[in-house]
């Protein structure tokens, strides 16, 4: 190697834009490994293990049959699948908001753990919900919303308190409750109805939002994919 590309220059280039890990990564990682191996440390007992496996299989089969019989439920609580059991390479947690379907789906390691209708900002308007890949930046159990529009604007709204606020952009983009919106108003077409989000946010019905808020971590990826045609992030997921 000559002086043109030396070791130090390479190191600097490799670590451009480097973000150090979040605080406590090692401790968190090792604690999760501890949690995972705890059953082993209690002493392997193959008979109990076998019974547990059979019971789990029966429960899963019952759930599958029930789900097949009752059709697709509008939402359900996130049930954590064991690590590595869903799809290889899938992110540990991912939230996808499909603007065209007005639907939010949460995935854990590629397994769908929650789905719910939502209401976003109206398409092709100033308050439309932007597409893209975001991350949960902050979680607020309650938050007072102030209208970004001046009084007199058709989009203006009075200060209002919302719950389980998942901020995905510092500019106010978020998933949050909308207690004023009737439960049957969410879903396809709602973005063009009277309850469309005026703050470009994603309105999520209260009950699934409680589950989503508890399940999502700061850092969880949120993909918002667009209306008006299939886009990466929605079509194949």
């Amino acid at each position, binding site marked *: 190697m000559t002086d*043109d*590309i030396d070791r130090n220059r390479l190191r600097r280039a490799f670590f451009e*834009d480097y973000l150090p*890990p979040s605080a406590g990564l090692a401790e968190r*990682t090792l604690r999760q490994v501890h949690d995972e191996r705890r059953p082993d*440390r209690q002493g392997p007992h193959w008979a109990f293990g076998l019974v547990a496996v059979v019971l789990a299989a029966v429960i899963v089969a019952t759930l599958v049959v029930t789900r097949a019989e009752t059709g697709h439920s509008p939402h359900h609580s996130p049930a954590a699948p064991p690590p590595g059991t869903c799809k290889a*390479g899938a992110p540990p947690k991912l939230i996808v908001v499909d603007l065209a379907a007005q639907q939010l789906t949460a995935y854990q390691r590629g397994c769908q753990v929650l789905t719910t209708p939502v209401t976003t900002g109206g398409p092709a308007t100033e308050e439309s919900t932007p597409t*893209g890949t975001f991350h949960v930046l902050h979680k607020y159990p309650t938050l007072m919303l102030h209208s970004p529009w001046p009084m007199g604007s058709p989009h203006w709204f009075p200060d209002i308190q919302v719950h389980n606020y998942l901020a995905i952009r510092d500019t106010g983009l978020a998933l949050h409750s909308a207690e004023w919106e009737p439960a049957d108003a969410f879903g396809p077409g709602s973005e063009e109805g009277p309850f469309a989000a005026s703050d470009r946010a994603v309105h999520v019905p209260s009950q699934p939002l409680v589950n989503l808020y508890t399940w999502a971590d700061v*850092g969880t*990826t949120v993909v918002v994919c667009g209306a008006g045609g299939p886009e990466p992030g929605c079509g194949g997921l």
Partner: protein
Amino acid sequence: MSSSVEGDLTDAVRAGDAVAFDLLFDPLIEAGYRLAYVMLRDRQAAEDVVQEAAFKAWRRFHQFQRGDSPRAWFLTIVANECRSLLRGRWWNVLRREELQELAGPDATEPLAARTDLRQSLDRLSYEHRLVLYLYFCEDLEQTEIARMLGVRVGTVKSRIHRAIQRLRQDLGVEGTRQ
């Protein structure tokens, strides 16, 4: 950590000693994160990869051979996790979304601010980037890298050589740019 202490710890981990596992792997988590971050350029993904690698290290510890370097062994698992992630459909979907974002006005500045060398590194193949990183940033011996990647030392040498050549071509160094 001396090799005899490492040897004792690996024996203890093999016997199921949780504390020994922590002692052995705690100093390796950050090295694993650095590698994952450099390969993925995404903090959340890098942390996820390190956590998954730690799970695998625990589950597969019986495959670790006494006398091997735990650091190199753990970095191998991390590198394999990164490779799987990059090949996966999920990663491509997410990154495509991000690239579309980068095409917007907000993202022009960060792209322009990156040095030419960094951009050239990003254009290298995964294998070439990995071998350069392990050799120049983690200071691993070529023999150790060869063991990690399951290839011959000659292959490691040629990958390093070719990677540097490609960087030089890309940067137009020594008049090689066409």
